[in-house]
């Protein structure tokens, strides 16, 4: 019996005992660690520089203010993990808010409106997924078409902002959850965090979740390994559509209105949050916790700029742009090292 040299090839010049590997962060965790460090640095510098920044409500409010983005980014994470992209989510949000407001205005019971709009979002996603899978259309193109379709439909229904006067919507909107003395949050933040939790469990512990990673790693291999590639792809876009619709519902609750220009460009914010959170755009690597961190980073930038007071909010975009560049370069370096 011979033994082969089984030292992992990444260990250059290290001792050749395969069992005793020196601890070093696994390459796939590096981006997420970087994001976490960035978040902590930003937060502590905020606390150091601005009065009241250290107040717990500042941090807690991040979840409330970014609930919609978070939900949408969770769906986007699944899509990007398979190596795809979903540009339609912002438009699906606007369609959902408009439809919700219109239906409620027309007297539909809220408990019928809610499942209807959620199902519609999922259906739009499923349609896009089917086009991508069956006709081998690039996700970019298929979801771009979805974007125009959804936005156009929303504008056709109503171009004005429609107020929502439904009791249930208003009740949820005004409901406050007291976490501690002077620290309150809204139900939409809880929904968003639940979405993160469910997504994390799904990705780590279910076959569907692992198939998502496998497809992103190598779709051809996944097919040859007998994995349900087509089904998983369609499911991922369905999920993203559903998350977008849920985001739209949260939006309509938060603003108690529906407007066709709502959520404009939100798909790009969601993609940016995923990338900053370390989800690889080529697929197969990343975590939904990373996406959460990415959303918090973008939210914190906005908060800092608000505290600064004399800065235009356009600076948020500029800083997010710089961070995106930095993180994409970081991903490049990490993946190249792993080769």
């Amino acid at each position, binding site marked *: *019996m*011979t*033994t*082969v040299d*089984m030292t*992992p*090839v*990444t260990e250059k010049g290290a001792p050749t005992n*395969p*069992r005793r*590997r020196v601890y070093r962060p*696994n*390459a*796939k965790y590096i981006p997420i660690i970087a994001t976490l460090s960035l978040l902590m640095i930003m937060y502590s510098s905020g606390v150091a520089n601005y009065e009241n920044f250290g107040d717990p409500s500042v941090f807690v409010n991040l979840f409330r203010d970014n609930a919609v983005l978070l939900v949408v980014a969770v769906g986007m994470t699944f899509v990007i993990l398979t190596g795809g992209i979903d540009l339609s989510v912002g438009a699906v949000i606007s369609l959902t808010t408009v439809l919700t407001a219109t239906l409620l205005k027309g007297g539909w019971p809220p408990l019928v409106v809610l499942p209807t709009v959620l199902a519609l979002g999922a259906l739009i996603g499923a349609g896009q997924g089917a086009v991508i899978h069956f006709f081998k259309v690039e996700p970019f193109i298929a979801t771009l078409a979805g974007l125009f379709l959804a936005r156009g439909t929303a504008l056709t229904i109503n171009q004005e902002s429609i107020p929502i006067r439904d009791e249930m919507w208003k009740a949820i909107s005004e409901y406050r959850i007291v976490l501690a003395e002077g620290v309150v949050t809204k139900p939409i933040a809880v929904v968003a965090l639940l979405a993160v939790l469910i997504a994390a469990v799904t990705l780590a*512990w*279910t*076959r569907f979740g*692992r*198939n998502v*990673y*496998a497809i*992103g*790693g*190598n779709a*051809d*291999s*996944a*097919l*040859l*390994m*007998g*994995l349900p590639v087509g089904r998983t792809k369609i499911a991922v876009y369905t999920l993203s559509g559903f998350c977008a619709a849920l985001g739209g519902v949260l939006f309509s609750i938060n603003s108690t209105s529906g407007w066709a220009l709502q959520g404009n460009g939100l798909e790009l914010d969601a993609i940016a949050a995923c990338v900053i959170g370390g989800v690889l755009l080529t697929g*197969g*690597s990343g975590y939904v916790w990373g996406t959460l961190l990415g959303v918090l980073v973008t939210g914190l930038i906005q908060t800092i700029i608000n505290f600064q007071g004399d800065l235009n909010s356009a600076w948020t975009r500029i800083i997010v742009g710089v961070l995106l560049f930095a993180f994409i370069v970081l991903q490049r370096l990490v993946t190249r090292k*792993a*080769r």
Partner: protein
Amino acid sequence: MGEQSPVLEMTGIRKVFPGVVALDGVDFRMFPGEVHALMGENGAGKSTLIKTLTGVYEIDGGEIRLGGVPVRISGPLQAQQAGVSTVYQEVNLCTNLSVAENIFIGREPRRFGKIQWGRMRRRAAELLARLDLDLDVSAPLSSYSLAIQQMVAIARAVDVEARVLILDEPTSSLDASEVEQLFRVMRQLKESGVAILFVSHFLDQIYEVSDRLTVLRNGQLIGEHRVEELSQVQLVEKMIGKELAALEDVEDKAQRNRERAAEATPVVEARGLGRTGAIAPYDLTIHEGEVVGLAGLLGSGRTELARLLFGADKADHGELTVSGKPVNLRNPQVAMKKGIAFSSENRRTEGIIGDLTVRENIILALQAARGWTRPIPRKKQDEIVDKYIKALQIRPADPERPVRNLSGGNQQKVLLARWLITEPKLLIIDEPTRGIDVGAKAEIQRLVAELSDGGMAVLFVSAELEEVLRLSHKIGVLRDRRLIEELENTAGVDADRIMQTIASGATS
């Protein structure tokens, strides 16, 4: 083994692609606990037969029986469920996932729908231990070498309760000790009753590990034999359908030309040409009608030396003269203008454009040399292309077929044809025969000999010493990125002599 009943029986298998009959009534059978080699040249129908068995292609006629029961295999998943597992030439796993996951994905142990990671890792470790592998099963697959990845692929295939295991050229990227390890695993599986279908271009490996072999040629069954009943020479003759004498002929020709070549005019002369970190400065002269072979181990700088002569890398010292004039090869375009052609070793990534047709691929370099503003008339194109398809025996002889549908050896010939029609003075060929079969190899060797007869200078880079010895007038030996010796290929020079030079590193 005896004449027990076969686990797999394929009878009268027929598969037709537009314009070609890929399989024409092929019979194939396998018994439990045997290693069965499927032999044939590139394009003989091996891959097609395997793909009908793995469900990638559906058969147009015939019958497949597994364990005596007729089956219809409609996809990779169905094949797996029927007990047919495949490990492909390129490892088809997801390197971003862990070792354990790659073995179990799609079949993870679960409880209440939740994957039991601990159990999965334990079972993976057990399974790998059975194959004598001790890996960290939670490490990503990408942290292991290709050979280990291949073993993991086999572990996965075996765990699917495989009755038939297909290994499609598993050894092409493994080194000798890794091949030994693979064979040990194969023998172990064989003893447990698995029928293994083995495809390899290396005849020695076939003879070392197989019990029985089936030969295909042009989509037809040539015969099924027990390995010990058939000599290697007989096998090759069955595969290519002609006598081996053709190969011997090449050698004689090369011998005949040796004297003549030495007196011809030099095409390129390199003086102290080198590039820091890639290849130490070297002197090399290649004459008209001369074949210069480069020998050396993998990574000894063979390709690096050749790339300087084509301007693919820029030399940082020394000088180069082409046809007596000093030149500065800033980039390949300059080299091409000077009549230097380079046929690269990576035909897939650097040479062949799979979606273009044979004709378009062949005409590419000539058109580039003329400039895109002066298109070559279609009639002229057809003429040239027909001529080279005939001369190089490119099969199928259809200029309008996309190149990706051709076998490896034929793609290589298309690539050669592309450079030949530019009528270069110096043709550099890097590993032209890697991964192609015996018949195509002989044809490419014959072609190189003919070209040099016609006055072309050839720089021939190959990992196979025999090939270099057979064709070259002069042999440059490389070691550690240095050209250590230049040998006239006279009667006394053989593989041992070159191996000694490489081993000792001395310039004698």
